[in-house]
């Protein structure tokens, strides 16, 4: 895996939104939504991206796909620098990178049937022969687990989960290698989320896809992602193998996110340590000095207010574990002693029906 070149490489990506005031619309500042982010994703790998609202994860996703023009940095997709491409070259590469959006209600055209929505994607991306496209639409519906009769139905006739299946089929129509799922499951009921997680996993195995999976729920990301990046106020706070991250968090913010994820077990829930983060994410237009997390951090010392911590590797050979915290060693220690946060939780029950069906 290490020898192979990455499918996607993001280098020092920056996206600032100007803040303008007054009659002359002079720029008085900038919202630093993404502020120097680097990572890579290998072929057929899933990278999870986690953070609260306002952490910049959606802006990062859109800047990678060049739906936003970046303020700086490079995005290299399969050897090509996307940022440098002109409109024509960009159109050529776009089908290879697709996106599934958060809101299954707003991201589908209410006046287009499921079939027309998928057909449009085939046409726009010039996939295959025009004569074979109707057949392909039916195949795609089947691939995402929708019945053939869905073809002529409109979005309002589907449930939230089914709509998200249409969005996935639309993304797959372009025959992409790389899919960005931006909070694609967050609006769905938990029982439906589980179906979608399995669908995404199956599609990945079947079609050899690579995912950037964005969510605010660490538990869900742990199921899907090989590696997970935690983002806070436009920067990566921690990045490691998903299991490693959940078991040995080294950034206080990751620790807090893990502790905030509810455990479906009243006994474990009562026993474990709860780190409740005070307040909200600060204004990204005016981020705190030094470490951006110090205002909400229980480990913070004076050095955190002055010096911005850089990402450093505290992992083992071949298993990098990047963390941007002055006190990462102390946090790791804490995570190990507060076992309740990281230890496997035993429930929920996994029941299979008894073999006899003769009642």
């Amino acid at each position, binding site marked *: 895996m290490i020898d192979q070149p990455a499918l996607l490489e993001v280098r020092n990506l920056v996206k600032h939104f100007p803040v303008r005031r007054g009659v002359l619309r002079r720029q008085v500042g900038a919202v630093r939504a993404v502020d120097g982010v680097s990572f890579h994703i290998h072929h057929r790998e899933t990278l999870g991206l986690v953070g609260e609202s306002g952490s910049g994860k959606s802006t990062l996703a859109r800047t990678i796909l060049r739906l936003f023009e970046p303020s700086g940095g490079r995005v290299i997709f399969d050897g090509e620098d996307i940022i440098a491409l002109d409109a024509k070259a960009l159109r050529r590469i776009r089908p290879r990178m697709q996106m599934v959006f958060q809101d299954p209600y707003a991201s589908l055209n209410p006046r287009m049937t499921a079939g027309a929505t998928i057909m449009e994607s085939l046409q726009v991306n010039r996939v295959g022969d025009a004569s074979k496209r109707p057949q392909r639409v039916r195949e795609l519906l089947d691939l995402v687990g929708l019945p053939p009769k869905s073809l002529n139905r409109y979005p309002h006739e589907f449930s939230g989960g089914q709509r998200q299946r249409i969005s996935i089929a639309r993304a797959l129509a372009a025959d992409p290698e790389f899919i960005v799922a931006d909070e694609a499951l967050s609006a769905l009921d938990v029982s439906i989320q589980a179906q979608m997680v399995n669908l995404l996993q199956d599609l990945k195995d079947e079609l050899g896809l690579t995912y950037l999976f964005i969510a605010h729920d660490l538990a869900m990301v742990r199921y899907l992602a090989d590696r997970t990046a935690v983002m806070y106020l436009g920067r990566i706070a921690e990045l490691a193998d998903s299991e490693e991250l959940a078991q040995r968090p080294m950034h206080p913010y990751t620790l807090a996110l893990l502790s905030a994820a509810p455990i479906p077990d009243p006994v474990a829930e009562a026993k474990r340590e709860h780190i409740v983060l005070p307040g909200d994410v600060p204004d990204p237009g005016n981020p705190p000095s030094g470490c951006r997390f110090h205002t909400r951090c229980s480990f913070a010392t004076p050095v955190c207010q002055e010096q911005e911590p850089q990402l450093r590797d505290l992992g083992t050979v071949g298993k990098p574990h990047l963390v941007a915290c002055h006190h990462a060693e102390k946090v790791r220690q804490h995570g190990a002693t507060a076992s309740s946060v990281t230890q496997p939780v035993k429930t929920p029950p996994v029941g299979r029906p008894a073999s006899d*069906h003769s009642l």
Partner: protein
Amino acid sequence: MTALLEVRDLVVRFDTDDGTVHAVNGISYSLEKGESLAIVGESGSGKSVGALALMGLLPRPQARIEGGTIHFKGRNLLTQSGQEWQRTRGREIAMVYQDPMTSLNPALTVGQQLSQVIRHHLNVRKPASRERAADLLSLVGIPNPRGRLDDYPHQFSGGQRQRVLIALALSCDPALLIADEPTTALDVTIQAQMIELVKGLRKQLGMAVVWITHDLGVVAGLVDKVAVMYSGNMVEQAPVHDLYRQPAHPYTLGLLNSLPTLEHGTRRLTPIPGSPPDPLRPATACPFARRCAWVVDRCRESPPALIRVAPQHSAACYRSADVNRQPAVGAQQ
């Protein structure tokens, strides 16, 4: 002793152009003073409709209460006049809604909205109501409460707005607080703050809480008992520990299995296959039969009633004994 709240065989129907929607089909539960109950179910399970009935806020004329009673402090709410409702609603039973962005008035300051409610119900003068409003903001953990009274909702963050909504609900010391998916739109970190806040307030003020959610994970550490709803029916009811340890209905088990835990190892979730039945058609069988792995012929012939399977634990399933017998993952090791 009479319970604080007693819902018996409540049936709610909606008349729509497509036919009659069987939203709630005879649910029953009770709540003691200071007790907390979670009502869990998917979208369309009727959990919110049941809550709106408690508040007398069902949309008219589409919604009809076809049967049943709701007794609160011994009196039947369903026979109350409009004026009596005005005194109950907000004063004795208060509700926190899902969306903090749309349930506050954007054109009024938070202080105005709070003191309006206080003056309406408690017959106090303006300065006193403002005083009480500041106390409430401080109670729900908003820093500098006096200074924030003159701020408008848009000047508060999402989590703070939800706190303001809770303050509004608490303004008249209600005996019962209904929270309808209050954390669904929020980040996990803010959700954790809300859960701690409601837990603390419940202890401090001794009010009963009904927490409505689709996520069994959220309520594990929060409530005394759980009622699971499916397709307008109550399919299981139990004290919180029993429900998670020994679920007796396949649907409850399915909900638990579809939750991602931070547990090590497993890479695949076990979702419930299919989707809920059409609420336009009255159930002649167990509503869960088509999605159930335990299904037997009997399930397709007549719907099972909610029966006791253990002390304080009931389930509506012919095979609850078999579901119950499945060992928990932890018990196997």
